[in-house]
């Protein structure tokens, strides 16, 4: 098992390196360098070029590409991501401020879609062919086809503007409001973000349960006299679980992509809305770092999924 963990972790390192190299090339290619941000264009014209060159040399800007990349990479590893072009604030500071909101929203959506999706999927599978099953299947197809932001807008119109049950958007930061206020604000965006995933998980759970139901061990379990709920949950669902864990991993990109749009609609102060603002303002350092970190997060997540799968299903880790 330890060998498996180490091997899987080592596989990610080269990918992260290539990614960081791409990101650095992107940063390097953009017009202007640190000096042109330090000195205004008027002052720039009056300064002696030799002096400029000296400043560049002192800042290490004249070093060969690979040396500069190495220094930048060392900084990134230590959490120094450079500065935002539009606000001048360190990128890491912006990210720390924005991260809790995004994590909160993503976890909520993940929990909603996993729980709701598996329960509906299991019900659908146990009542295979019934009107309930067909109804859920159709609902699932619609859930997969409806644009997330459009679903979010409809939630706002019905539950915020119409019924007035939930706030239109926004978020009070942790600790400054009661737990109730927070959940209240979280409900609509989390549900909007979770809808497509719920539909996906449901389809998968249904298929996996039906698949498990036809295996011989289910007959055995029934034959030895276990109650039906025990057969379905303990024996059937356990086997159906492996593909579902994998599915949650595959859904993470959807989650990250979705949160960009959903955060915008609900005025949720997370990384996604910050990313959009950065794209609009051409704030390249911020754009690149967010892209790098979100990809890193996804690689890390896929690593965790691999490990969890290996724990659930020993055949995976024993494969060559």
């Amino acid at each position, binding site marked *: 098992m330890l060998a498996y963990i180490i091997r899987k972790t080592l596989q990610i390192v080269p990918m992260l390196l290539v990614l960081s190299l791409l990101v650095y090339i992107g940063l390097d290619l953009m017009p202007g360098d640190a000096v042109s941000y330090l000195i205004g264009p008027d002052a720039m014209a009056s300064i002696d070029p030799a002096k400029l060159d000296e400043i560049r040399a002192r800042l290490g800007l004249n070093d060969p590409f690979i040396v500069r990349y190495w220094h930048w990479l060392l900084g990134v590893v230590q959490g120094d991501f450079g500065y935002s072009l539009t606000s001048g604030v360190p990128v890491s500071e912006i990210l720390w401020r924005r991260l809790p909101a995004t994590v909160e929203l993503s976890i909520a959506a993940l929990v909603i879609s996993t729980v709701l999706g598996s329960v509906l999927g299991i019900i659908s599978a146990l009542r295979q062919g019934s009107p309930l099953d067909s109804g859920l299947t159709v609902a699932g197809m619609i859930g997969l*086809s409806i644009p997330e932001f459009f679903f979010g807008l409809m939630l706002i119109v019905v539950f915020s503007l119409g019924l007035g049950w939930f706030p239109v958007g926004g978020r009070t930061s942790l600790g400054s409001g009661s737990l109730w206020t927070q959940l209240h604000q979280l409900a609509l965006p989390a549900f909007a973000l979770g809808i497509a995933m719920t539909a996906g998980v449901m389809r998968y759970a249904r298929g996996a349960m039906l698949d498990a139901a036809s295996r011989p061990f289910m007959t055995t379990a029934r034959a030895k006299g276990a109650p039906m709920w025990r057969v379905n949950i303990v024996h059937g669902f356990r086997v159906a679980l492996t593909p579902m864990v994998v599915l949650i991993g595959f859904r993470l*990109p959807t989650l990250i992509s979705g949160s960009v749009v959903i955060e915008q609609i609900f005025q949720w102060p997370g990384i996604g809305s910050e990313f*959009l603002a950065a794209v609009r303002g051409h704030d390249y350092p911020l754009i690149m770092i967010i892209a790098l970190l979100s990809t890193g997060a996804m690689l890390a997540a896929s690593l965790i999924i691999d490990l969890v799968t290996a724990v659930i299903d020993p055949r995976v880790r024993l494969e060559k």
Partner: protein
Amino acid sequence: MPQSTRRATKIMDKVARAVPRPAEPDFGITKNSHRAMRKLLRQPVTLVGVGIFVIVTLACLFAFLIAPYDPTAIDMTSVLKPPSLEHLLGTDRTGRDVLSRILFGGQVSIAIGLGSAVGAAILGTTLGLLAGYRGGWLDSIVLRASELFMAFPQIIVVLLLVSIVGQSALNLVIIFVATGWGSIYRMARSVTLSIREEEFVMAQRALGIRPLVICFKEILPNAIGPIAVNITLSTAMFILQESSLSFLGLGVPMETPTWGNILNAANDLRVLRDAWWLWLPVGAVIAAFVLSINLIGDGLRDSTDPNLQG
């Protein structure tokens, strides 16, 4: 040509003919298409999908005939008018007819979705066939590249590229193709790897037939079914992505009507509350159209997947 070589060629020819070819898989587009087609059309849900798809596509295609107004004609005398006989779906903030905008916008949205899906399929299939067939360093480089692209959360990399190359419909298609070829490449590659060592392919190789010809004439037909399914499903995905991006104001430039650009008006709570005709109909059209493509894709998978065929 020396006698011996000619004899060898003849023998190889015979061998090639004698080696039993695998039965032509029935993928609905090749010779025995009737069975798969019938199977496809027998599913009522798929028929509903085909129905919605045909109606929406035709309506958008013939927008210049049925649309009551010019989609860009500004009429400041009738601004934000609710639906009436004059304007079936009302007018927007500058008095443009919403129905006409939905019809003409559909042309652009569908073209972007379909164009990107076909483009990604062509790129992915070609890479999958050639790199998979050749193997070696080429294959592993392309494989790593596809992993890299699939590791990026898609909308992040799309927005990153949009911020670099700028907003236009064509740029969007290029970006979608560049970021979306991964899944179909993997599919084409795995088909190629599974067939590469089959006897009929070996025989062709022994006859000196060029790899390019073997890839496209012998291996490709085995992958047509999954490719068709992939194209439909990614068309749906790209249409959804275009609408999200344009809704955010970062997709197609605002002058061009697309489904997402029409929805952009809904970024305003007052519009959401008071002017439902600006966002509800177009959102419903997107959802219905994407649903119809997903239904067709599912039906296509059920009717072309050899594993499901009795």
